[in-house]
């Protein structure tokens, strides 16, 4: 009954006015996110990571003959953004994503402001969409900041004019930046999937901390399960299963199969997470 309280006095003729303009709700949510100091600090911290890695590698000259992308970075700066994405997407980026998702619903519930939103003249599906867009914005910003800082550090500190791929071919600068953009987009899709699931968890609780714990804890559990050989068959459903394949954009030609699998998987997770968040919010009592 409270849900209709605001509507009772309105004549039926101006009913369409009862729902708030969607654009305005979205922009207010986005600016809310961008004005939260912890979000800005998180972005700043993320921007420093590639600088740190790049500087250390430039000073030490990188590991000689080591394995992994670290050895590929030396004198080959455009590998740095991909390396930085690979390092941060395991824990740091999911953590920040989960933080924003936690603020979105659980945080509002804890403050008591969610109740106001549920009563406000905005549909519940729209409410979830608004919150999801907020998380998405933060994901894009976070991933973009890592990549951009990586590219700049790579070009300025490590230094390179092009990219030596893992296959030993040399790509010109433009194409190399395309590869970095691809890795960035791919990483953003993965983080969006994490964000969707975190949002679903956020819808079920009013403890922000729980959202962080469940999201990051879940990723850690996936990591542990992946290490058990007899659970090999289960591996394809872990969101983390192909995360290391982000370096496949550095092969020439690009090694697509794991990247595509990863996209499909992230899509499924996004669908599950978003649907679960909607389902929970739709059935939530005010």
């Amino acid at each position, binding site marked *: *009954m409270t*849900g*209709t309280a605001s*509507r*009772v006095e309105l004549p039926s003729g101006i009913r369409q006015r009862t729902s708030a303009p969607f654009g305005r709700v979205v922009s207010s949510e986005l600016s809310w996110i961008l004005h939260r100091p912890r979000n800005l600090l998180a972005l700043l911290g993320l921007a420093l990571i590639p600088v740190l890695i790049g500087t250390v590698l430039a000073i030490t000259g990188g590991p000689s*003959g*080591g*394995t*992994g*992308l670290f*050895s*590929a970075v030396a*004198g080959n700066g455009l590998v740095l953004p991909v390396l930085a994405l690979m390092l941060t997407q395991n824990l740091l980026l999911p953590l920040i994503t989960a933080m924003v998702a936690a603020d979105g619903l659980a945080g509002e519930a804890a403050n008591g402001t969610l109740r106001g939103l549920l009563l406000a003249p905005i549909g*519940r*599906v729209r409410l979830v969409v608004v919150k999801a867009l907020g998380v998405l914005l933060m994901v894009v910003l976070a991933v973009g900041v890592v990549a951009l800082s990586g590219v700049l550090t790579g070009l300025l500190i490590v230094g390179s004019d092009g990219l*030596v791929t*893992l*296959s*030993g*071919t*040399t790509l010109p600068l433009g194409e190399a930046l395309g590869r970095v953009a691809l890795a960035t987009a791919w990483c953003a899709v993965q983080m969006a999937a994490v964000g969707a699931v975190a949002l679903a968890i956020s819808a079920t609780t009013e403890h922000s901390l729980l959202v962080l714990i469940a999201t990051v804890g879940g990723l850690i559990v996936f990591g542990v399960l992946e290490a058990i050989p007899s659970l090999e*068959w*289960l591996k*394809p*459903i872990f969101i983390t299963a192909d995360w*290391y394949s982000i*370096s*496949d954009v550095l*092969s020439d*030609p690009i*090694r697509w*199969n794991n990247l595509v*699998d990863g996209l*499909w*998987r992230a*899509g*499924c*997770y*996004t*669908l*599950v*997470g*978003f*649907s*679960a968040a*909607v*389902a929970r919010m*739709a*059935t939530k009592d005010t």
Partner: protein
Amino acid sequence: MGIDRKELEGNRMRRRNIALTASAGIAAGALGLTSMTLPAGAQSPQLPQVSANELLASVMESDPPALSGRITVQNELGLPALPGAGEAGELLSGGEKSMRVWYDGQQRQRISMSDGSGETTVVDDGNTVWKWDSAERTVVKYPHGESSREDSGTERPEADAPADPSELAQRLVGKLRETSTVQVDGTASVAGRDAYELVLTPKPNERTKLREVRIGVGAETRIPLRVEVNANGSSDPALRAGFSELSTGEQDAELFQFTPPENAKVRTPEKPEEQGSAPSREGDSGPGDGNRPRIEGTGWDTVVLSRLPESAMRSSTGDGERSGPGAAETGGTGVRAMAERMGSPVSGSWGHGWVINTSVGSAVLTSDGRVAAGAVPQQVLIEALRDS
């Protein structure tokens, strides 16, 4: 009040519909995830009947077209991990590997293997074979003639199986026909292509550890698309190498060129340097017949007898001598030390040595440096050693 209740009712209905739709979304997502765990259930295609002879002949005649694809090798050979055997060891170690291949239909090819975050790429541009290792950032350059000679001298078909399954299958078929039953046993789908299953079964009098070799021959291209080696006593293939992705058609010529990147180390080996291939390189330094591998028997129970060069037997003698029977009993990282570590000791009237058993074959190294190996039980090897 009545309107209010009605509206409330409608609200509730709408919310329930939303929740139902959302639940359907959850189910769809979960289904999509589950579908990833299921192996691609390929149906056996319906193909016109073909006799084994026709099929074999068409395989022999066909040349592989220009193609690009991915070859997946599943190796359950049960070979012990060979420390220090380098790349060959890595290829032979168990598990699943995949590599991407490109072939221009004539002679140029490119193979690319990835291990997590590094990559090994081999480009054969027709004149030179380039081998790039991204972890070491080195390029090894083989002039063309040398590397192909090395390949043909190799006595481990499984080592170069991944490189070109078509070649491997053709070689196998030709060799095994006299001693095997050859038949076409149904059809299969390999890398999305229809294929006939050509099955080679050893004749009953062959003493071998192998049960059958199945070769998936592309119905259209008539090139072998997959090779499966099945051993006795196991339902899963001991070795399965085949295309998991394949597309034929003209390939980009740039793929078959290689320019070493700046600041990469480029070297040209004077001699192939791996220890592991020592027994198979017979020609170069062998003082006569002693080191030349000898083939005993025919068909499936073929045994290869050889003698290790002295250097391999007593490599790195500086490590200090161990007490034992015979002067050759020295420690080190040589083939011998490896056999001692991996194998179990056997002895008999023929002498004394170490045997390594795998699911598809066995090998014996004697203390005086003789080697016998084959896809046979250990007993056959020992008989061959006794007779030699």
